[in-house]
């Protein structure tokens, strides 16, 4: 399985596959091949719970092709707990800002044709 396939399989289980640099310990999403801090290419897998709080988001009403049937929906950037990493995803069923204040607790619940799926916790 490629790294991306492994990432997707983890997302389907609500997890985030990350790569921890074995030289300096810096944590990256697993789609990165060289350490941003020290340039090392050696990583070990670290699987995080896809749980955190909404760092920012938008509610989309004019959507790209394939997404019109889901409007209105939110695109969210989730700040993961216990790490500096953020990850973005699709959140359905959001119509107004009152539905999703910044800071709302949320979690990854799957991966499909809408990419990473995030739901309120």
């Amino acid at each position, binding site marked *: 399985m490629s790294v991306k396939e492994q990432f997707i399989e983890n997302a389907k289980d609500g997890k985030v596959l990350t790569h921890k640099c074995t030289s300096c310990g810096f944590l990256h999403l697993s789609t990165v091949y060289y350490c941003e801090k020290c340039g090392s290419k050696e990583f070990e897998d670290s699987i995080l719970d896809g749980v955190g709080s909404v760092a920012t988001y938008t*509610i*989309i*009403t004019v959507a790209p092709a394939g*997404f*019109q049937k889901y409007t209105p*929906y939110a*695109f969210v*950037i989730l700040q993961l707990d216990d790490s*500096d990493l953020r990850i973005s995803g699709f959140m359905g069923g959001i119509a107004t800002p009152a539905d999703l204040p910044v800071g709302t607790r949320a979690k990854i619940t799957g991966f499909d044709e809408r990419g990473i799926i995030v739901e309120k916790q």
Partner: protein
Amino acid sequence: MRFVEKVCVLGAGSTKYGKLADSIGDITTQASVAAIDSAGIDPKEIKAAYISNVFGVADKQVHLGPVLMSNLGISDKPSLSIESACGSGSVAFREAFANVAAGFYDCLIVSGVEKVTHTGTDWTTTYFAYCSDFFYEGQAGASFPGLFASMARAYLTEFDATEEDFAKVAVKNHQNGLLNPKAHLQKDITIDDVMNSAVVASPLKLYDCCPFSDGASSVVLCSEKFAKAHGGDYVEVIGSGRGGSPAALQGRDHMTTIPSTKIAAEAAYNMAGITAKDVDFAEVHDCFTIAEVVDTEDLGFFGKGQGIQAIREDRTKLNSDISINPSGGLKSKGHPIGATGVGQVVEVFDQLTGKAGARTVKDAKIGLTHNFGATGASCAVHVFQSV
């Protein structure tokens, strides 16, 4: 950094921006001919062309360079196309700048173009989403307004700002655009118009967003020796900088700043030997109202979180503290994405050579262009000085 040659803009031209009927090849040629006429040169003096374009495939024409060169009667001259999303124009300009500065060529043409409006809003929205980090953003349903709306939401959360403040950016740029005969949206609007327009991606509404536009812009770039030998008006390029940011918003520690702008601006200011305070006016990348606020902070015109205060106090209007987007910006002038970065240089050329008419920035000596790709994943900043 030492260069072999000083670099100058000798001529500039644009089509009108908006919904255009002519083909992508035709509008590229029209803008190029206008730039050549403005420079007062013979096309045969052009040694090569740099073309900026993103979605040529949408108008059934990629490999635009040879089409342009054939139309200019110089089919033996080399050309290339550069794609860097909405920042393509400034990146093409930068590459042309570097080649003249290094002494490879004494005269080049840079032509930017986009032709997309015929594909309709749904498809243009879809194509533009391909400029994001698709795996994380476009695939999850993020549109471009959606990505900038995410920045706007973060700004509203972090600073003392309101949606009405953002609306004021649109009102200002439309006022400037009314003075620009080539602007796409020549319409006076009010804050209420913006606030009552349809929500595209909360908190951004239709009038917070630049339009999808067709259009082409072109400049003739040359060495100072070449410019002096021709005797016409020209403008000197005194600073050029580029920078990068994480491709996806999620990779950035702060959602209310664009790292590539800061990096590019610092490089351009250093090369020019100036600071942000020395800039008389700037054409900045206001694809959405939030973007202009963030840009004016990242370029160093205002402190972090102070850009919104500057808008509120009218400090960025035409002939105020610093004139931001005298052309009307992307918001009113329009945003044919491959042309935009070159079009900004056209505006600076017109301003610094006394051709900007009613929207002239008084006593301007130094102008700046700032243009980025996607959510600022790529960026170029240039500084120009009147001669």
